[in-house]
């Protein structure tokens, strides 16, 4: 069970308080109506499944209800960093 630092609450809390929301940094297309089916399909359905570093969204569901980003290693389950929405990851290579 993970021990996750909420960057808004400024504390480590148990995983039970959080929900995972999948891959981070997927931006909704600015003009969906002009997307081709393929572009829209890529936005909607295609996700990475890396063995290694993964940037993902978590929400402090039973806490402050804030969404934030986590860089997690999918093999060791280490959390390398957490950062707020709108920020970019610092850890991008193992």
């Amino acid at each position: 069970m993970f021990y996750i630092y909420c960057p808004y609450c400024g504390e480590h809390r148990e995983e039970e308080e959080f929900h995972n929301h999948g891959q981070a940094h997927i931006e909704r297309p600015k003009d969906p109506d002009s997307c081709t089916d393929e572009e829209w399909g890529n936005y909607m359905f295609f996700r990475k499944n890396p063995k290694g570093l993964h940037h993902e969204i978590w929400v402090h569901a039973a806490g402050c209800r804030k969404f934030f980003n986590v860089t997690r290693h999918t093999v060791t389950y280490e959390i390398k960093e957490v950062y707020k929405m709108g920020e970019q990851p610092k850890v991008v290579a193992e």
Partner: protein
Amino acid sequence: MSQKNRLQSGGRIDRSKPLTFTYNGKQYQGFAGDTLASALLANGVDLIGRSFKYSRPRGIVAAGAEEPNAIMQLGATEATQVPNVRATQQELFAGLVSGSTNGWPSVDTDIMGLVGKVGGKMMPPGFYYKTFMYPQSMWETYEKVIRKAAGLGRSPREYDVDIYDKMNQHCDVMVVGAGPAGLTAALAAARGGARVIIADEQNEFGGSLLSSKETLDGKAASAWVADVVKELEANENVIVLPRSTVNGYHDHNFLTIHERRTEHLADRAPNGAVRARYHRVRAKWVVLATGAHERPLVFGNNDVPGCMVANAVSTYISRYGVVPGRELVLMTTNDSAYQTALDWHDAGRKVQAIVDTRKNPAGKLIDAARERGITVMTGSAVIDVQGSKRVSGVSVAPISEDGTKVTGSVKKLSADTVASSGGWSPVIHLSCHTGSKPIWNEEVLGFLPGKTVQKQLTAGAINGTFTTAGALEEGKKAGLEALEKMGKDLPSMDVPATESVTYGKSMALFHVPHTKPTSQAPKQFVDYQNDVTAAGIELACREGFESIEHVKRYTAMGFGTDQGKLGNINGMAVAAKVLNQSIPETGTTIFRPNYTPITFGAIAGRDCKELFDPERYSAMHKWHLEHGAKFEDVGQWKRPWYFPKAGESMQQALDRECLATRESVGILDASTLGKIDIQGKDAREFLGRVYSNAWAKLGVGRCRYGLMLKEDGMIFDDGVTSCLAENHFLMTTTSGGAATVLNWLELYHQTEWPELDVYFTSVTDHWATMTISGPNSRKLLEELTDADVSKESFSFMDWKPMTVAGVPARVFRISFTGELSFEINVQANYGLHVWEKLFEHGEKYNLTPYGTETMHILRAEKGFIIAGQDTDGSVHPYDLGMGWAVSMNKPFSFIGKRGMQREDCVRAERKQMVGIKTLDPNVVLPEGAQAVFDPTASIPMPMVGHISSSYWSATLGRSIALGFVKGGLEKMGEKVYYPLADGRVVEAEICSPIFLDPKGERQNV
């Protein structure tokens, strides 16, 4: 009641406190301080079970958690049955009732034993797979017999009478194991001011020191242990947990501890005490000081009762004052096991011989044995033993220096006990739980903890440091290192002085050779609990199972409650030899939690019965209970389902509720609807983006129904949102969807549109909501308010603040029944008052309470959907004929708009929602019934849809249904058929889903 194997003195038992206990229906006596195993051995009980597969007689092999055979069923009553308890870990108490787990009908006369004798050779690995494959339909019959024969423990058939609980703990340093290494680690950390938890699975702290003859600082080892425990217990920052097994080591230094608080006292927890406690620990640093298990050697018939692990024999003698036999033969590959022969000899019983597999052993312990006149046979091994229910003799033969073959003639010795030692395996289970790969160490002849990402330190025998001095020193070092990593000051700390011990080199021998090839030699057991033999592993390898993980699954080695504690290394070595590769190349299987079995009671804690899941009640719940409501679970809510009167069937109650509402007035407790308060200057813009319809022009005081879609265009929730003020809205959601919708709104606001000024607050529980519905609802409301609620000033889809029954209320003129309807919202703590006032005034209108089922019928008569019942995540608004709720011209591309335009969403012949009328109006189709166009088509028939809602409508005097049919919206009036599971085929007609009042005249009055 003689304890024929009990010594007159010595050990950590209290001979002044005899305890009577029952084993397999017979009474025996032991002493306070005994384990069930030591007490059985004291009484000379050799046979404690039958083996899993071959049903061979088995005895106690070990003295701790690694015991594979002595798996007991405990419990004096049905409700207190506990299966699969190791006798070696169960402390004795007066009145303990135990029995063998396997052996049917009894351990001494075992039916399967006969089969085992006949079938032994015929039961190679894969026997069950190969034999019981066909016919498949017989498997369930086979399984019953196999299970009984296999003799797994049984769960109680009555409800557990004891209570259990859980604790969440945080600490700086979690020390696992309270042997010499764990104790100095805890001591160092505690003296440095750290918050420490130290846990050990045994009743007493001390580990190996409890049965050691060594001195520490010149005093008995146990005296040093007592001093340390005293200091730890006196420190308020230290939690001392005996009888507590650290069962799992999980990510981010999360550990679970199974603490047995009363299982050493009585069958039932005394005075309502907590029987077991589950600690969930988050530790900054973990020190694993889990020690090592001695490996038995693998030789012919090494499972005959009397064959034991060498150190276990010493433990029984030194700690429990029990010598489990008369004549001992010790076989060893190393020096340390000599202590067992010395202990046996010093207890006054005969050591027939020490059989050392090494050519030229030398050292203090060897000298000590020779000084006592014990015969030491070098370069030899016990190749097999004689006896069936107890060892009667052994065959000893010289072996080659590499341990692969017998090199000389076989000599027989008489003996009733064979102690063996193949060296020590560090207990690395916990370090493996987090995914760390163990590393083989040629010097230790065992796997050591590998690289880890956890904040984990290790000390003592787990590192292959087998001397007490080394363990004490490593423990101290680990404790100090943890302090240092946390930036704490380091205390000065001395470890006690020990006598110097040096051990000679051990021999790497895992599988003792026999004069016959392995396949023909007497069975050489590797894994006792799963009946895996060296021959079985060799066969598995020859059959092509080359990965150790495959060998494990094919042979069952390392399965069960045992988890490979004794057998794994030997098994891997046997496989490595056949595969002609090294042990590190062969690798090890993965140890998984839990380290030893844990009861469901401990896992569940208090999370059972009414505390299993929270129940949510509305403010009017008490009234519903008093008026005989039947309840339905909606999410965590308990909602009234229907309100039967005395003698009424469910259908009769529903008919009465429906008709009363349509004819006069009914009332529904709608408090469970999700309510989200939305504020901010961009609130309106935000609504336009998350709903499929338009919100730009919704005026203050008006309400609107909206569909919420996912990006793929599919409906996931619906509800009415009202404009409270220019920048202030109240959104309602389905009862089950409230939390999901709130999370959804937050997701889009925080991740996509943070620039919008909008705030969401859940207000579901703040309001009690009651809907009065029916032609007399206005008259009833007028009696309780001074506000003008006439058609002219309060029209359909308006809301108004007003006073109702003397309390402030928001009243919404919305309708889910198609009737004139008012939804009255008051502050939740006024809910019951207003509800009761409504009934006071409603009696003359026959005000009738109804529940979710009548609500469903009334809305279905109107063709209104229930999100989640009529939608399933594959339905978009046009599939429902609800294009009117989609505004394609909104400037912002709302969520779901682009998704709905995908190729698959716009194709013809999608399944669309329609009304379904059965030809026979009395037939109510089952929900989920599958639709076909041609009931004579061959099976499998092309399926063209299904029924999503189906009811008896008392108002219409016939059945009604909503369902999906391919291209249904274009097929009004056409026939569709529903072949049912019972063979009937129901003929029906496709119609409008609005069965009642298609123009909506009833609600616009």
